[in-house]
């Protein structure tokens, strides 16, 4: 049974993030309902923003669950050690920021969401 809003520990909803190399591109694939991916070598903001919007949507929608990203390395399409380290650091920071948002989100939910 899921925990209620405001309780100390809440149910975690994990979103799988898979690191893979496809067509010589190092990609993070986010497991939303409609999977979204970002190219770790690219400076293009489009996909990054789409991922952020989907993350925000889940955070706001899931009142009783906490979103957490879980990184796995795709064995079928392996990438390099360097990109593993990059992906690990990136997802670690993203999870930290999501946690921080949860400190505010309940207050915000009452007023604006």
């Amino acid at each position, binding site marked *: 049974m899921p925990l209620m809003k405001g309780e100390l520990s809440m149910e975690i909803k994990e979103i799988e993030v898979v690191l893979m190399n496809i067509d010589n591109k190092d990609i*993070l694939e986010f497991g939303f309902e409609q999977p979204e991916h*970002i*190219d*770790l*070598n*690219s*400076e293009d*903001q489009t996909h*990054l*923003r*789409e991922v*952020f*919007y989907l*993350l*925000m*949507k889940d*955070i*706001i929608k899931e009142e009783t669950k906490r979103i957490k990203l879980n990184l796995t390395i795709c064995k079928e399409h392996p990438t390099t050690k*360097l*990109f593993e*380290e*990059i992906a690990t*650091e*990136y997802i670690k*920071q*993203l999870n*930290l*920021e*999501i946690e*921080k*948002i949860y*400190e*505010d989100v309940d*207050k*915000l939910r009452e*007023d*604006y*969401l």
Partner: protein
Amino acid sequence: MKIDLHCHTKKTKQGDGESRNVDFDLFERKIQDADVKVLAITNHNHFDYEQYLQFSESQFSTVWPGIELDVSGTNGKYHCIIIVNPKEAEQFNEICKNEFKNKSPDNYLISAEDLVNIFSELDSIFLVHYLNKEPSIHDEDLDFLQERLTDKNALLLEPSSLKSAGIMVAHGLRSIVGSDVKDWNNYEEYELPQLKLQVSDFDKFKLLLKKDKSIIKTFLDQKNYELVTIQPFSDLKLTLEIYNDVNVIIGGKGTGKTEILKSMEKNFQDKGNNDVISYYAAKNKIKYKELIEINPEQNDINVFDLDNQSLDLKLLLDWTIPNATNTQDYYNWKAYFQPSKNFGFMNSDFAELISDVTLNKWKSVYKEIKSGIKQILKHEKEIEEVAGNELENFKNILNIVDAEIRKKLINEYCNWWSLKLEKTTINKMKSIYQSKKGEYPKPSNTGFNDFFVKHIGLKKKISEIKTILDMGVQKNEITIGNLPDKGRIYVEKNISLNPDNFDGDSKFILGQGYLRKLQNLKKSIIDLESNVFTIAINKSLSEVKKQLNDMGINNLDKFLGVSSKVKKADGNEYSPSTGEQSMLILNNVLINEGYNVFILDEPELSVGNEYINNIIVPRLKELSNLNKKIIIATHDANIGVRTLPLQTIYRVDKGSNKYETFLGNPFTDNLVCYGNESKVLNWSEVTLKVLEGGRNAFNERGVIYGDKRN
């Protein structure tokens, strides 16, 4: 015109000097030298009918019969002069003969009660010694006289000097002084008052008293008219005395009354005083539209009690989707990272991510508390009524709450800023290090937190905008006048920021034709609100910004719109008739005491006798008492006569495009031809003939017309 209402012609009491005795020759010479035009013989406790008849033959002055009596009041003795209408001189003589039989003027003393009983039947003026004129009447005895005297008796006060009389007039007391002559050899040296207007007889003098408390020219109001030169037609130039009072222009249709008015209006306007207001009955249709026309005004926004920050759209207009940290930055950091002993911060994260949510929460709390306290203290009196002395404690608690929350807010603000400064400083140092060493620092964050916070800020702003645009209608009532039987008529001004509250007749601060555009903009804002947390925000935001920029809107006050309805006292909508519209326009002109010149063309048109008698005429009298110049072209007898105009301008059509202009007033009862002073008409006869009015109106004017109306 000099007047002497307190004049002795005989030594009648032992205390009187011999030099009070005067014979007819000396009397004639002296009043001619003194230029006295009206004189009342008022000897002490004595009336010499024969002498009065002789002196009234004077070719230089009108002489009225009178007497100065010693009166015993409840608070001591005072002197009262009684001046009688010459038409009742004989009756007055009989009363005096009877009253003074076997009584010496030295010992004569009449009670206040007898004074009233015996003399008030006569058409008369009671002039009592007042203030420093001894023996003077006590206020209690004055009240007695005021109570007991009738319309037949005018009551005047006589102080010791003309200066005192002037001061009393300025304070609304009807007063006058006479010579109280003691030595006829020096008669011309006595300081005597001048009447504002020439009066032809006793009746007209009393009429003047009835019209105006200040009948005499005093040092305070020497200038009570203005010479105005106008040229209403190419062949006519007039220089007229326009009084700070009612001035009427009468005459048949087509005699140029309106042109004279317009010319007069232009003359006053050209003087640049900007104190002229006019009413032309022919323009009523347009004037009524103007009267009920309601436009949005910038300060209408105040009815919503919103602060500038809430109305400001800068946040929305400047808002852009924040950038996320590129993953390429993480690649650069990992690929080119070389640990440094000296610059440990290159690898540092921030202890806390910066969020303004808490700060904004306290901002919002403080704002609401502050506004709540303000609202509560609006009812300070009512709170005191129920809580008594506890009010002070209550106010202290409110002050403490206010101060503590403010302290908390400042604290939050400091925290937020210190984090922000820390982040900026570290980033700056990383950037400097990177440029010096060609190395890449570890990214501080992915940008997701900032991304989220900034979207929340936008969502909050849009929610606030939507709440404001959904606010209800605020109503203001603008009274446009009162109508008989209907009461107050007002325009209900409906003010709103919500374009959905309006229809095509509404007006917006932006101008005409904005209804649809504002409605579309509101829809776009609602659409944007639902898209804040989606990728579609980009399109929605661009659409809103485009509309805002196209319409030049940077503040919600640009949504301000108004609609209006004319309503009557019971709150129902009302469409005044043509006559009622005239009443309302007139009301708005006449109510304006800020103006000094009132130009009125046929104010009687369409409004009916009752309105003229009950509203217009009394109001014109009030304005004349306020020393306003009122110039009226009229065909109405009530306006032309009952206002007792100080100036009457009469235009006569002589045929073949020739006209004559006569000037006069009801007090002289004359109208003198302009440019030909030998040609004189009778004012009463002319006004009876020229002015139209109901039978009742003419009956009410009996006093003015005397016997002529029969």
